């Protein structure tokens, strides 16, 4: 335990001694309180899209928001970012797998290979995509935009749209300081990169609100046991399992309830018979091959005296165990983002608990982590864990923030 963590634990212990536990509050130990405190505070500082100098700029966010909801970016006008990342569904779509096209010219009616992740708090993550194939929000935005099975965008058509639509052209000028560029020939990076950075700036602005858990956590930290006792006992018991014998917080760590890396939880990863999703193994290969990663020429340098966001990309290594690993998702608003896992194979949180209760070590890779053990659920444990997970919902969030067009109509 570091010095700071000891100090925090000591402070919490003192707070615990100073005020007798209130009725309705479990007798959390100093160690448990320190573990609970580590899941906050919330909200965190505003997120910054790595390598994106436009991140945080209102004009870029306003343009990105407009583009996010505009299906005209897709080749046939059938698909916008918001078609799958729906604000009323916590910027997910409620389907096991996102819908796309079987062929580039086909209709949007075919399940893709993976579940559509929520974009709330996406800016707080380290890697994007279930396989972490992207090291910035803006580079991730290019994938569905250009993927023939998704939006299948044609850059020349987008350039024409941006120049012909007065509102978009106005927003572009405000965000980028000039008119939308023309696209001539195959080189379209000078259009696509600033467009993607506008989308990245918008997505980085999508934040979830405070939850019942956050209010409990903060009350516990400041020693206000009466306020802490307003948190339902079932959720307290579920939290105790989550940070204790359930070992959930080992991977679902920190304020986001994710350590930001990848894991193999023994879930089947067949896309269809005979075809597997390599997960992180493929994601690292794709990332390292991409000209849009943070080591490439399109990434903006970080502001002076700030950490270099490309450190993660520069030092990343591919390992055999990455095969079948997928990103550990954050759990904020988890009850609102069913179904679950990288391909939506588990329809409910109950099914997720069943998965962990019935883990088979034989299904985990031979060289996998020795962390996962079957979750022992007894008595009210299941209901308590569900009560805790549901306390991570922030019902007020999910609405698209209204970034003003600034006189652009």
């Amino acid at each position, binding site marked *: *335990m*570091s*010095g*700071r*963590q000891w100090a925090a634990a000591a402070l919490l212990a003192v707070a615990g001694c100073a005020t007798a536990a209130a009725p309705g509050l479990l007798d959390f130990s100093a160690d448990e309180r*320190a*573990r609970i405190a*580590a899941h906050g505070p919330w909200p965190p500082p505003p997120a910054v899209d790595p390598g994106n100098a436009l991140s945080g700029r209102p004009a870029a966010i306003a343009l990105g928001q407009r583009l996010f909801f505009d299906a005209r970016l897709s080749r046939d006008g059938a698909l916008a970012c918001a078609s799958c990342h729906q604000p009323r569904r916590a910027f997910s779509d409620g389907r096991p797998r996102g819908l796309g096209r079987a062929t580039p010219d086909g209709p949007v009616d075919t399940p893709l290979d993976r579940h559509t992740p929520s974009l709330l708090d996406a800016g707080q993550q380290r890697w994007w995509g279930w396989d972490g194939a992207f090291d910035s929000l803006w580079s991730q935005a290019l994938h569905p935009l250009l993927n023939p099975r998704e939006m299948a965008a044609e850059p020349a058509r987008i350039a024409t749209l941006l120049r012909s639509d007065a509102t978009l052209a106005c927003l572009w000028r405000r965000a980028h300081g000039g008119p939308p560029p023309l696209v001539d020939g195959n080189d379209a990076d000078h259009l696509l990169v600033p467009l993607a950075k506008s989308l990245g700036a918008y997505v980085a602005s999508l934040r979830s609100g405070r939850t019942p858990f956050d209010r409990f956590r903060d009350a516990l930290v400041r020693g206000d046991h009466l306020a802490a006792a307003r948190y339902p006992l079932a959720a307290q018991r579920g939290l105790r399992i989550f940070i204790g014998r359930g070992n959930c*917080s*080992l*991977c679902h*760590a*920190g304020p986001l309830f994710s*350590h*930001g*890396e*990848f894991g193999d939880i023994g879930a089947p990863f067949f896309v269809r018979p005979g075809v597997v999703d390599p997960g992180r193994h493929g994601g690292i290969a794709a990332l390292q091959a991409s000209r849009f990663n943070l080591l490439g020429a399109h990434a903006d340098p970080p502001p002076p005296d700030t*950490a270099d966001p490309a*450190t*993660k990309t*520069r*030092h*990343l*290594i591919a*390992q055999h*165990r990455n095969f079948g690993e997928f990103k550990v998702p954050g759990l904020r608003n988890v009850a609102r983002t069913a179904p679950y896992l990288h391909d939506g194979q588990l329809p409910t949180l109950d099914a997720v608990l069943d998965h962990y209760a019935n883990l088979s070590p034989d299904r985990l890779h031979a*060289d*996998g*982590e*020795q*962390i996962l053990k079957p979750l022992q659920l007894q008595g009210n444990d299941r209901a308590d864990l569900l009560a805790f997970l549901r306390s991570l919902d922030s019902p007020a969030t999910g609405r698209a923030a209204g970034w003003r067009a600034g006189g652009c109509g």
Partner: protein
Amino acid sequence: MRRPATAAGLLLAAAAHAGCGDTLPAAHRLLTDARPDAGGWQVAFAPSPAPLPAGRHVALDIVVCPPPGATPPAMLSVDADMPAHRHGMNYRASVTALGGGRFRADGLMFHMAGRWRVIVDLPAADGAPARRLTREIDLR
């Protein structure tokens, strides 16, 4: 788990390296275990940011303290793992030699809480064998 060390070995090592890495910030300076098989070598390191965090990239300022009569290596390598979990880091540290037995390792990340083992490998040189020096750290 840490290997057991003999009292005599520990005393000798402690005497030899009482000031190992004393140019590093004292509050955050860590020493590799002084085991008999370390041959009198020891490494001191200090993380940046400090104290050592979980889930963030960190750099280590490193000082190699050789036994009497030996000279520090020109280069070394740094890694870390979680023996109980049977996995290492997801990142490979890069090391820069700063001269005089001082090094800087960049790009480490201890991505989860638990017991980590920092591994410093000194290459074989001048007829001396390669040596692995370690230090276990509990991260919360």
